[in-house]
């Protein structure tokens, strides 16, 4: 579990709201509250996604020096995709790397700052995929996972978590072609591994639609 300073997060979100534009997906204004630091038991990550991203990137560069981050897939769904049985650490972060124009994907999972698994994989798809991923610009313009959690906490998450004591949070970050910005999605894998609780524009911090449900 990680103790989050929501005051810091909210400030960050507010600044982002001032400088970013709107995505194409429907958006809802973020309600910003002043909140004390909280210990969110439902979040099992000991580090944020962006804190451990450099570890994954270093490994991906060994796979292919041109590898770029295309997705932070939801951990539980990714385990299912790779045929891994349940029981993986709930605090793991998956990172998906690709090289443009190649169907091959490279996954790195980080747990507690250590590489837990890595896989070169290829999805079996029928025809042209309905959705196309864009590379994520890791230039500091995107909200980290902890920022997304802060937005969620202040926009329904506090109530949800208080009434779902067994919730376990999972995250996904994707930038689908056609959307202006990447989107964080947060899941409660104890309730539904595939239906997000909330979707947040990773640049503006606004609540948006599920990018896969557009």
């Amino acid at each position, binding site marked *: 579990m990680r103790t989050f300073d929501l005051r810091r997060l909210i400030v960050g979100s507010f600044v982002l709201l001032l400088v970013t534009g709107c995505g194409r997906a429907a958006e809802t204004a973020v309600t910003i509250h002043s909140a004390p630091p909280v210990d969110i038991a439902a979040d099992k990550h000991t580090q944020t996604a962006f804190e451990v991203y450099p570890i994954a990137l270093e490994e991906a560069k060994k796979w292919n020096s041109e590898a770029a981050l295309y997705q932070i897939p939801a951990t539980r769904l990714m385990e299912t*995709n790779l045929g891994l049985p349940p*029981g993986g650490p709930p605090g793991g972060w998956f990172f998906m790397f690709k090289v443009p124009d190649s169907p*091959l994907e490279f996954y790195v999972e980080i747990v507690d700052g250590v590489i837990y698994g890595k896989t070169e994989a290829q999805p079996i798809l029928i025809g042209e995929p309905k*959705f196309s991923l864009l590379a994520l610009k890791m230039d500091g313009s995107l909200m980290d996972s902890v920022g997304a959690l802060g937005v969620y906490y202040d926009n329904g998450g506090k109530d949800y978590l208080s009434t779902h004591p067994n919730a376990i949070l999972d995250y996904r970050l994707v930038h689908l072609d056609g959307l202006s910005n990447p989107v964080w999605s947060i899941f409660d894998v104890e309730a539904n591994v595939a239906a997000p609780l909330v979707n947040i524009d990773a640049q503006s911090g606004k609540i948006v639609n599920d990018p896969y449900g557009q």
Partner: protein
Amino acid sequence: MRKSVFMLLVIILCFSLVTPVFAQGTTGTKAPGAWVSSVNIQNTGTAAANVSLEFHNPDGTVALTFAVTPTIPVGGSRSLYLPSDVAGLGTGQFSLVVSSDQSLQVVANSSSTGPSTAGSYAGIQPTEIGSPLYFPGLYKNYYGFSSEIVLQNTGTAAATITIEFYNQATGAKAAGADITGSIPASATRVFALADFASIPSGNTNGLLSARVTSSQALAGIANVWSGAYSGEFGSYNGFTAGSTTAVFAPALYKNYYSFVSALTVQNLGSAPADVRISYSNGTVENTTLASFQAKQYYQPANAALPSGNALGVFSAKVESLNSQPIVVLVNVEDKVKGLLASYNGPSVSAASTNCPVVMKSFYGWFSAQTVQNVGTAPTNITITYASGQSKVYNDVAANGTVNIVELAPGSALPDVSSVSAVISSSSQPVVAVVQENSNSRYTTTPGDYLLAYTCVTQ
């Protein structure tokens, strides 16, 4: 193009299956849980492999064809998966035909939620397709174990099949228990023993073997499961032929860190088979098996076998003394955690054997390769990983084994590895089996995470 055929349980989004029941079987597994599978393909050929996949619906129609591009390099391997968050194959049970211009090894890993179990089996090679098919170990309410046979008709016309069951205790054919039916061309059917009242049941009569005859060539696997502990599951391939000389069981256990094993021998011949089991500690058992009869040897029940963490791991050589074809199945179980895995006893030995997947600290998994020297003199055994490392184990005695466990500090494999490996011997023929396990996953979510498969002799 060379083809490997294997049954693949593919469940998207983890929805439970509702399977229609046919008189000749069902179209989906009866093993409890919501199942997903991944396919790991290794190129064991001499050039980059062009590989294509053809998924078949249970009715035999083609559900999906997929060209694996880019090619898989020599010695390389690739995991192929069905994205659960992208519309594609849909939910269901499929069989898969893998074709390539190079020789391949294919391992399918299947896992379930509710209960959390896992199983693994090697792709069925063209040489393993045919009729009859034999299944040495089948269970119906046998100390809580259940089982099913999954058959795919690989022919181009409907297959007329008959499944005969044999009582392991008596060797007699189970009267009135024959299942007859038809499987459409390319179609798959599941025959769960629990669905057929005529098949005997229970601790006395529910321990069975089977012989399947068909008008078309079949590919088949058996699934075994139990509701004990947090749920147990294992798979093994059906046999088309046996050895008229010897079959090997590299990994057997008697209370070895709570592991036990059961070795089952089946006579595929039309005459009684005189069988001798020689364990690596010198213990010998002899028996005569009636035609098509199988017999299970539960190692903890044999007082002559060593027990415990120091000595309770051993191997065996199973011989046919009168040239009747025999096969061997081994079930391995952890009696504390409730882990189950099955492997087919290898009958072909050589100076080198290929293991498509070995692991170290890979998503919480590790593997243990048990290599048996089946020659007559000591030998040096070398494991060479596709990632470039190797390690030598000197002077492994005849009928002795070396257990290569991919855990620190003894492992030569780097952390976070999942690679293929070639195991070679300096002077004697060897065989090997691989077990994959995950202690960390068990800690988080108790279940059956033990998988096993037999390495392929080159």
